[in-house]
């Protein structure tokens, strides 16, 4: 199960912005994966949103990073 979620996670990554990194974000996402069976629904819901928004963003992205 965990491996499935890991793969999902790896497939849906966005490249990290070069601005300020927030290490808390990745740790928060991990807590979904660590929730085990109880987390399946949450993980699917979360990654479905991210999956759809990935494509929506792809259509509208300008490619400009506000940076500093």
């Amino acid at each position: 199960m965990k491996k499935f979620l890991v793969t999902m996670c790896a497939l849906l990554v966005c490249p990290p912005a070069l601005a300020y990194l927030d290490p808390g974000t990745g740790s928060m996402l991990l807590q979904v994966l660590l929730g085990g069976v109880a987390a399946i629904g949450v993980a699917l819901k979360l990654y479905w949103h991210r999956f759809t928004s990935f494509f929506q963003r792809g259509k509208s992205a300008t490619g400009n990073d506000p940076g500093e």
Partner: protein
Amino acid sequence: MSTSPEYRPEGGSFRDRNSRVYVVDGRIVRGLSRKALEAFDALTATAFYQRAVSDGHVVPTWKMAPEDVPLNEHARGQWEGFLEHERIQPVTYAYEWTFSMLKAAAGLTLDLLESALEEDFTLKDATPYNIQFRHGQPVLIDIPSFEHLRPGSPWVGYRQFCEMFLFPLMLHSYRGLDFQPLLRAGIDGIDVQQASRMLHGRDRFRRGVMSHVWLQSKLVARHGGTERKVGQDLEKAGFNKALIQANVRRLRKLVSRLEGSDDITEWGNYAEMHNYSAEDHQRKEAFVEACLAKAKPGMTWDVGSNDGQFSRIAARHSQQVLALDVDHSSLERLYCQEDRPDNILPLLHNVLDPSPNWGWRLRERRDLPHRAPPDLLLCLAVIHHVVITGHVPLDDFVDWLAEITPAVVIEFVDRSDDRVQALLRNKADEYEDYDHDAFRLSLQRYFTIESKLTLDSGRRHLFYARQPDRS
């Protein structure tokens, strides 16, 4: 308006905007914002907090009446209310603890979190700086770390728990690495990327490494730059308390299964390996007992304590004994002794490389003399290591003694002793100052020798000395 030094907040308490600690005449006073005060009132009404208080898992704490707050107007005006905590002495840090001490502190943090979650509270921090040892047992001292759990929110202290507790414990348990120098090098602990580089190869298949280390490092690297509000995403996706509880239970199980990796060291069987007779040993014990009984110190440092044989004697006559040594195995054994008196605290401490003042403005974490100045220093069979192995000139060593303590019980080991000979064996002997008479004269520059004992072997001399102008 200038702030007089006694009303300056403690250097290590600046991170929480809702609370600040002051030490005034030995009392520990904590100012709270309105938000923190309301959280404290709600906290004290919970069953889990009351249980934690009665079990001694949190530091005894009470609300102060405004007229009792020993601060000036300026400091009082900054806060909505004040708490007083029982003072814990000494304050110690994880880079001075043994593996089992850090493990006990990690276990307490998770236990408190698990019971807090049942009543919809959480711990916003998970750092060993919030845990201290009181009567030999870990207690949480940062009460405002408890706050209401926001529905849908993950455990915000998880990453900090990993960096400050879990990774150091894993590195010791799985790789046999000393975590103390790593925690002394980074005030926020061991970063997940660093941990991932150290726990590599086959280590990835050890319990907990794949998920808490490798996967977390990947997620942090890949999602650290996201512009999404992940907290909100999690809430919308239905993240809930049960997920935190499941994770905390797994972490608790993981931590409890981690085991120390100590081998028997050179010092591991010190009690059996000293090189003098049983009679001399008894005379040495009797001398130390008599000196301590006379001195009745509040705080005793047993420097080079090994597994605490003489710390136990000191503990009978002192309020608190710090058993200080460089050898982790010996201290670990002392900490794990079921009959260890609760006023003995084992700490890793190297007088040649001691805990420094460091962190923000070099005041966030303090050196040991600042936190726990000794009334008496017990220093048995240490001097040859400092002078010969550490290359510290003899007079310099005595200068340090005079600087740090008003009284000392010290053993001088002659250069004819085979332990000293062993240290000199492969060295050019440039230690002309290492001499019994030279030591006595050096000591008398500051101290009055109250009593002296030469053991039958004639190679070991014990001194009890006090500085007349320091009580």
